[in-house]
């Protein structure tokens, strides 16, 4: 793998950067592999990388319908954090954050990981109670969460001039999550792709999987693509949003619905906010990218959707909530908006398991799966390699639905 460094840049500058090696090869598609990973998004690429690196399985083909890194990894709000509520979830995300922090060195690719902390701006007492619950449970697993006063919140987020004592929902304090950060989403996809490729994994773009194939024994035997049939005894599906579309080709139904989650960015402006700002009571969050854009996320559209747009009324709710706390943003301009598909389980927690079809593995139901990419890839690779769930993901198998033992991160009966 070609080393990336300032010296490499200097060297290549001499000949006008015309001799850089490709970040990944484009080998011919073979007829069979040990493992097929469907989907070259963040989770698929990370899974392939860890299969090769941690488990020595490099006879792997990653099949991508479009261009690699074009899944949700290309269209999310890049927030990495571990402030979850339940024992089942926290350690997994703690692990994921840790892996993210080492990723630039591990992959020799600058993720621009910026551990800039997240501040929750709290506006109701029930929310403050819930966050305190998280805080004390997170502490058991070494994830940091500190309560701060309203004054401190405003000191650290000067642009937060709304939410005063007379506001509809006054700011009553905040929580600081110092482990949180943001990074460059394309770099995550390209870094894992380059790393996997260097370890022998084959990346095949423009290779949509149209059908999963079962053998006579009922076990998985491969996939069908317009470029021909590709065989493997282990097929791992990491296609957020389209999981059921694929599994239904082998008659397998999963408890998943596909939703459209939207995000938007403002015009680029000079640095104004240097933390990730999350306002759970108002229903939005944002951070300022290194380019200067405010990267803003809000609520998902209602209803199942494979359409990557935004619902105007949902969008307006997010915007007005933001303006109520950040009134100076009224003159700030919307530059671009988009959506992404995610599939969500009845309890809004992820599903990672080998299915009833032997050899067919799924990782799905990731709500905010970007932060889960490294640990998600590592644990999925573990499942594929060992055939048994990684301890960090054992609460999230399909088994839990047999007795309706939901893992409710949302923490309420009605938020579904």
């Amino acid at each position: 793998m070609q080393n990336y460094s300032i010296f490499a840049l200097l060297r290549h500058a001499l000949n006008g950067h015309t001799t850089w090696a490709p970040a990944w090869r484009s080998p011919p598609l073979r007829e069979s592999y040990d493992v097929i990973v469907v989907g070259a998004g963040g989770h698929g690429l990370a899974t392939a990388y860890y299969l090769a690196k941690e488990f020595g399985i490099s006879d792997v083909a990653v099949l991508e319908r479009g261009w690699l890194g074009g899944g949700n990894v290309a269209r999310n709000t890049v927030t990495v954090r571990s402030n979850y509520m339940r024992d089942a979830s926290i350690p997994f995300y703690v692990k994921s954050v840790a892996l993210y922090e080492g990723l630039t060195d591990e992959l020799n690719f600058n993720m621009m990981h910026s551990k800039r902390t997240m501040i929750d701006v709290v506006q109701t007492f029930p929310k403050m109670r819930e966050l305190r619950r998280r805080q004390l449970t997170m502490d058991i697993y070494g994830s940091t969460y500190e309560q701060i006063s309203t004054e401190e919140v405003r000191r650290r987020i000067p642009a937060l001039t709304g939410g005063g004592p007379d506001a509809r929902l006054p700011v009553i304090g905040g929580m600081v999550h110092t482990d949180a950060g943001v990074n460059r989403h394309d770099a995550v996809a390209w870094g894992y792709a380059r790393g996997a490729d260097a370890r022998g994994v084959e990346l095949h773009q423009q290779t949509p999987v149209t059908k999963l194939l079962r053998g006579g024994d009922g076990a998985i035997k491969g996939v069908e693509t317009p470029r021909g049939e590709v065989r493997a005894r282990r097929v791992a599906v990491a296609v957020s949003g389209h999981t059921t579309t694929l599994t239904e080709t082998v008659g397998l139904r999963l408890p998943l619905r596909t939703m459209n989650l939207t995000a938007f960015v403002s015009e680029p402006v000079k640095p104004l906010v240097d933390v990730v700002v999350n306002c759970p009571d108002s229903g939005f969050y944002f951070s300022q990218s290194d380019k200067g854009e405010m990267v803003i996320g809000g609520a998902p559209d209602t209803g199942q959707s494979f359409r990557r747009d935004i619902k105007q009324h949902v969008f307006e709710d997010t915007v007005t909530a933001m303006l109520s706390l950040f009134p100076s943003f009224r003159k700030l301009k919307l530059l671009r908006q988009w959506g992404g598909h995610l599939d969500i389980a009845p309890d809004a927690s992820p599903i990672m398991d080998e299915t009833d079809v032997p050899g067919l593995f799924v990782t799905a139901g990731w709500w905010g799966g970007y932060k889960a990419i490294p640990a998600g890839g590592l644990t999925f690779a573990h499942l594929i390699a060992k055939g048994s769930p990684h301890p960090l993901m054992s609460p999230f198998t399909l088994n839990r639905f047999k007795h309706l033992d939901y893992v409710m991160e949302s923490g309420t009966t009605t938020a579904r």
Partner: protein
Amino acid sequence: MQDRRFPTGGRIDRGQPLAFRFNGKEYTGFSGDTLASALLANNVRLTARSFKYHRPRGIVGSGPEEPATLVELDGRHASANQAATTVRLEDGMAARSVNCWPSPGLDVGAVNQLFAGLIPAGFYYKTFKWPGWHLYEPTIRKAAGLAGAPEAPPLDGHFEAVHAHADVLVVGAGPAGLMAALVAGRAGRRVFLADERIEAGGSLLDRRLEIAGRPALDWVAESVAELETMPNVTHLQDASAWAYREHNCLMVNERSLVNSTVLERNWRVRAGRVILATGAIERGLVFPQNDRPGVMLASAAQAYVNRFAVKPGERTVVFANNDSAYGVASDLRASGIDVAAIVDSRDVIPDFARNFAGDIPIRAGAVVVGVRGRRAVRGVAVAERDGRGAEKIDCDLLLHSGGWNPTVHLFSQSRGRLRYDDSLATFVPDEAVQACASVGGAAGELSLASALRTGAEAAAKATGTKIPDLPAATEESYSIAPLWHVDAPGAKGKAFLDIQNDVTVDDVRLALIEGYDSVEHVKRYTTGGMGFDQGKTGNVNIVGTIARQKGVPLQDVGTTTFRPPYTPVSFGAIGGIREESVVLPYRHTPVTRWNLDRGAFMYEAGARWRRPGYFPCGDEMFQETVNRECRAVRECVGVYDGSPLGKFELKGRDVDRFLDHIYTNLMSTLKPGQCRYGLMLTEDGLILDDGVAMRLGEHRWLVSTSTAHADTVHGHMDELLQTQFPDWNVHVTPVTSQWNNATVCGPKAREVVAALDTDIDLSPEELPFMRFADGHVAGLPARVVRVSFTGELSFEINVAPRHMRDLWERIMEAGEPFGIEPVGSEASHVLRVEKGFLSLGHEVDGTVDAHDLGMGWIMSKKKGDYVGKRSVELRRRGNAIRRELVGLLPVDPNVQIPEGAPLTPGGETRPTEGLVTACVWSVVLDRWVALALLENGQSRHGETVHVRLKNATVAADVMAPVFYDPEGRKMRS
């Protein structure tokens, strides 16, 4: 001194001079100017610095496509980035170039140019890794970003968002759009016409064309006047359609409204049919130093000359690969600008074009291989495409035209597919998928005659009328031979594809070399097309360059996705009037005013109700206040406003079986006058709500719900009745706001209610616990209900809201001698915790069921089926360990446990075995008491468990979850 302004002509008003500042210097322009035209009139050539290399830049375009000159406005017009070409000049305006310091003339950031070789596309992925990104990030952040962020909301005026409905929405008031609006308007349809420019006319404003043998602008004026007379037509200028949503809903952002306090208005237009007459945008040519100040789009120069009477240069060279530039050349020459040469990359030039050129020397088959002058164009180097016949031509203005791109943004947002058209060498709309039609330039119909024709045809089709006779228009023809970038021998130096983000042909080459070879990869790796202008002039050249490098057709490369907005729109306009207090709904009861007067601390308490948390007296601390309110209820009497509780009247033959189906316990056995506490589950066995049902009559019931879940329960009941039991005879009527109530509770409650004088017998015999009676209280028609959420003797007095404030004040009067206190949510919380009463917000968190809460008795065994029964049984057959509700007594009675604190074995750093759901100071027990969910808690009474805090553990004894009057004598008294 506007020394570049022609003495006559143009669409500006020389009678209205406007003074403005740019980068600290004073200038004047005229009404009708944009900031860009005024700057050019004042011969300001160097107006900006580029994003990455900080190269000197000038004005390139004349509209929203402007890639180079972004400004920041100060003072009254304060806003962040704006393209100078879209800023309508106003008197006293102050503008600054973005992203350069101290000025575009002397810009410190320009040092980047020295390292240009080191920082190709994606360089940051390869470096800044050691020792850590955090060392470099702050500097890079400062360098990035463009304008400064607005520091305050606009002082005067406000924003507005509004709904609109139209039979036909026409976007764009150029020739095609005006013609479409006329046809649809004359047909009597409701027409909504929106155009992004300050005045109507579109490209006609920039050019010298004729309609019906007269100047085209006469026709524009007449058309606008006619539309003016039509009451069924709404015509907006300076209004951009920025989003095309599903079901023909478009967003239109209206700016600079006259004599209104509204700064900007966002129209949500729902249209029967949409006609997209958004015109076309000229793309540049890609050649070395094509970013120098004085290198300008041909169409822009034409606009400055004709529309603004501005002379963009003295001596110009025109570089083109298509015919349209010839008309520009002839206009410029007619204005006395010396056109040194037309350099056309095509070998064969159509006569149509040649006629325009007249005696202007034409170099066919030639290209511009370089530009002289760093801060202003001083000349160009020209050569044949194969590099032969090189010559230098002096000039101070280089115009270029790479062809025309239909403005397909909205069409593409509507999900319409694009098709690459070889004859036009660009992407044009293919089949429409929503009820819309593209006309004129937006459809690739680049001649005036075809614009008028297609506009009329689309409108006629939309309105089912016949196409009118069309006026004759200037003859035009258009042909082009694509030239994606100049690579003639001798062409050296940076050739820009995206001028704003400093993306060059070499950057795209590098991306492809490294394997980033899909159009999306190239965009992301080079950031091409990701600037403020979203690549309006450059994107197709990028696609062309990729196609050329990879040797595939442009159709196969495709475009990146067009996303809203078409042009940036301020968040304020999107939000409209929703701000501050009204950003979220809020609800009041007739007592809210009284609470506020009494100095109550109010907060959101579910379902948008603003409720009193507590009623501080004097300089009491919070806990003192709550204790006082609790003591009142436990020792004498208190009253609270229970109005927000959800209430529904159910009527019909099948109400009994319906209630038995939605409640876990048996309701149908109730007699009129009785009420019963009940629990509702979701079908998957989770707790949905709890409340009280009363039988008013044989077929009439009143069902009350928790405040927070009133709407949820309403939906739940309606859905079951309309979808599962359509033939059941049950009518549901929400009466939450027909019945308010004041609940008098405490040992002295009966005396207080009696003192109000009532015709209802309050004796425990006549009106025992869980009964109600209708009658009068304090002379007001009322229903008195014996329920208790505090564990004390309680009378819930229900009246119509019109009487509520009256009742409340009478209660406070009558209660005064008994020491009555108004009770807020905080005290109510304490009182219910002391009794171990369920609070959905605390004890129910999506996993517990009634058995866990020690309420197994409420899960009827008599009933074969009810919502959630099967799921609860199924879940309990699983082997998951249950977390059950228990009471906790901190071993040290004076230690408070934070609500939500985890219980771990021995308080060690281990997975939790439960959590504290509530912890309150009990005035009756004079200690802290808590409720908790604990693994197998019901069998662990008497055990000591440990709460794990960050730096401490709290030992607590486990007991049954009731601390006060376990037999419930008091509330039954």
